[in-house]
Structures are given as structure tokens and as C-alpha cells.
């Protein structure tokens, strides 16, 4: 079990809900992933829409914790406004704060992000900022009251994996008491395992599951990969060495030193 922002959570896997082939596959993937937390978003109701949508009707049956996002916001003021709507819509003070600065790689605008985080923390939100792996930015986010940080491994939806392991290792080492969840850029379960082996607290991903040929099977693969990585971290990885060491003691084996006589 894991205490995340005062909630007891059993899974360290946070799953996004976008881009699945169907609502049924999405729900099956969530179930198979054994995640406790799913990300959700907000949209304007179109004129032809009728009352509640199927997504909301189905998703609330899954008993997941909702982590709404502020996707599409480019200014702090828009992100704050969206967060306020999300709080009422999803009945949670958790917010995945996204303030995008560049449309090409969806890199966060760190200046607007910091501004929005400070306002939202003062308004009682539990802010999960989607941020880069910049140490100083992360320290500033902690300074304004963030207890959780969500640095990227690579740009959203790129599936490129861990682009800068040094920066991520530095974050883990320098912010040992902050919940660090890697958000974005993960393409393969093995990358999620590696992140967890590095001591990160969790992994948030969406596209790697939703765009897989078999999203439900991939959800299971990531589930197991994240568990394996966490168990390995808790067990303690052996130190890497530059020279070989025999794993079998050779003394007293039948042919010990035979070739030297």
C-alpha cells in the first residue's frame, strides 16, 4: 500500500483514459491494470449533446480515484479556472496541472505552471504538476507547496522512453521526500520497470496502453512491469561492477587449478 496525498493507494500505476478504441476496451484496460487512479478531463458540451455522456456513466462504476487534468491550457489563469471546474465536476481537490508552452513537443510552460501551482495550492488543491525534469523548477514547485511532482520521461505520446536518466536520477536523489511520478513519454513496460527500479513512486501513462494493438493486454503488462520495478527497488539492486566475479565458489571444486599443474 502507498500513501499518496493522504489517500491509501494499492497500485503505483496511474492510467489515462484517452484514445482507446472503445469505451468497453477502456473499462477493461482499467480493470486489468488494477490501477486505483485514472486521469480524466473536461470538455464543452456541444449543442447536439444530450445530457450525461456514456463515458461518465461507465467510468464512475469502476470506483477509481479521479485525477482530472487541465489539458489544453496555456496560461495560468486558464488552468486555475479549469481546475476549479474540475473540482466541482469530479468532486476532488486533486488536479493534474498541465500548462503547455510549446505545441510541437507539448513541453510545459514552466513559468505559467509555477504561477498556477502557487495559486491552486493556496486554494486547497492537491496539485500534481506535469513538469520537465529540471531540478530547479521542481524545487520551486515544492517551495510553493506541491507534495507531488510529475516530471516527464519524454514528450507526451512520443513513446521515446527515458531521454535523460541523469536528470531523473538527480531529481530522485535531491527530492527524497517528494512523491515523484513519471508522467509522459513511456512507450514500453521495460521502461516503466526501469523507472520504478530508480526509486520513483509511480508511473502515469496513457498512449502506450491505448494505442497498443491489444490495450487490455498491454495494461496488464505495464501493471506487472511496475510491480516488478518497485519490488526490485525495495529489494535493493546489487552494485554494478566492472570486473566479473564467479557466482559459484571455485575452491574445492573437482578441477580447481587443474590446468596449472
Amino acid at each position: 500500500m502507498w500513501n499518496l496525498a493522504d489517500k491509501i493507494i494499492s497500485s503505483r500505476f496511474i492510467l489515462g483514459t484517452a484514445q482507446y478504441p472503445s469505451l468497453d476496451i477502456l473499462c477493461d484496460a482499467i480493470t486489468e491494470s488494477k490501477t486505483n487512479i485514472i486521469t480524466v478531463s473536461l470538455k464543452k458540451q456541444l449543442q447536439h449533446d444530450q445530457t450525461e455522456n456514456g463515458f461518465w456513466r461507465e467510468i464512475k462504476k469502476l470506483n477509481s480515484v479521479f485525477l482530472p487534468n487541465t489539458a489544453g491550457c496555456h496560461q495560468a489563469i486558464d488552468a486555475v479556472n479549469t481546475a476549479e471546474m474540475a473540482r466541482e465536476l469530479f468532486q476532488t481537490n486533486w488536479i493534474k496541472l498541465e500548462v503547455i508552452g510549446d505545441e510541437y513537443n507539448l513541453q510545459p510552460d514552466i513559468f505559467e505552471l509555477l504561477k498556477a501551482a502557487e495559486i491552486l495550492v493556496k486554494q486547497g488543491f492537491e496539485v500534481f504538476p506535469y513538469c520537465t525534469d529540471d531540478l530547479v523548477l521542481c524545487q520551486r514547485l515544492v517551495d510553493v507547496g506541491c507534495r507531488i511532482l510529475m516530471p516527464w520521461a519524454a514528450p507526451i505520446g512520443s513513446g521515446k522512453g527515458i531521454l535523460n536518466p541523469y536528470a531523473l536520477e538527480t531529481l530522485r536523489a535531491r527530492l527524497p521526500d517528494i512523491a515523484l511520478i513519471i508522467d509522459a513519454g513511456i512507450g514500453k513496460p521495460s521502461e516503466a520497470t526501469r523507472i520504478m527500479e530508480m526509486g520513483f513512486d509511480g508511473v502515469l501513462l496513457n498512449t502506450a496502453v491505448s494505442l497498443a494493438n491489444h490495450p487490455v493486454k498491454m495494461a496488464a503488462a505495464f501493471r506487472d512491469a511496475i510491480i516488478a520495478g518497485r519490488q526490485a527497488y525495495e529489494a535493493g539492486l546489487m552494485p554494478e561492477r566492472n570486473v566479473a566475479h564467479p557466482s559459484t565458489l571455485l575452491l574445492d571444486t573437482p578441477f580447481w587449478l587443474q590446468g596449472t599443474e
Partner: protein
Amino acid sequence: MINIFLNGEAIILEKHCTLGDFLKIQSKISGNYAVALNKKFIARADYEHTVLNNQDHITIIRPMQGG
């Protein structure tokens, strides 16, 4: 009479009314939603004392999939 916009659709009201009164008579608006008035969030607790004015834009916000 005042003109307002609901999700971009023009609506004529015979007189000023509160946001709360307006939402009650809209058949398409039920279930789980939030409201932005002129792009600013209005909390549910404020519906009854938010008076609609000419050219106001009301946007209904719904849950959707997100990553």
C-alpha cells in the same frame, strides 16, 4: 428582452433571470456538469445569485476522457 448564448447557441430571454433559474428550464442540461459564464467558472453555490446579462455566454462543461 436579453440575448444570451448557451454553448454557442443564441437564446432570447424575456427578462433578466438568475443562472439557477435559467438552468432549471433547460432540458438538455442535467446530470453531472459545471458551468462557465463568460469563460469564468461559476460554483454551483452561486447559481441562484448570479444574474444573467445581455450577451452573456454560458458554457456547460462535461467530463471526458483525458491522459
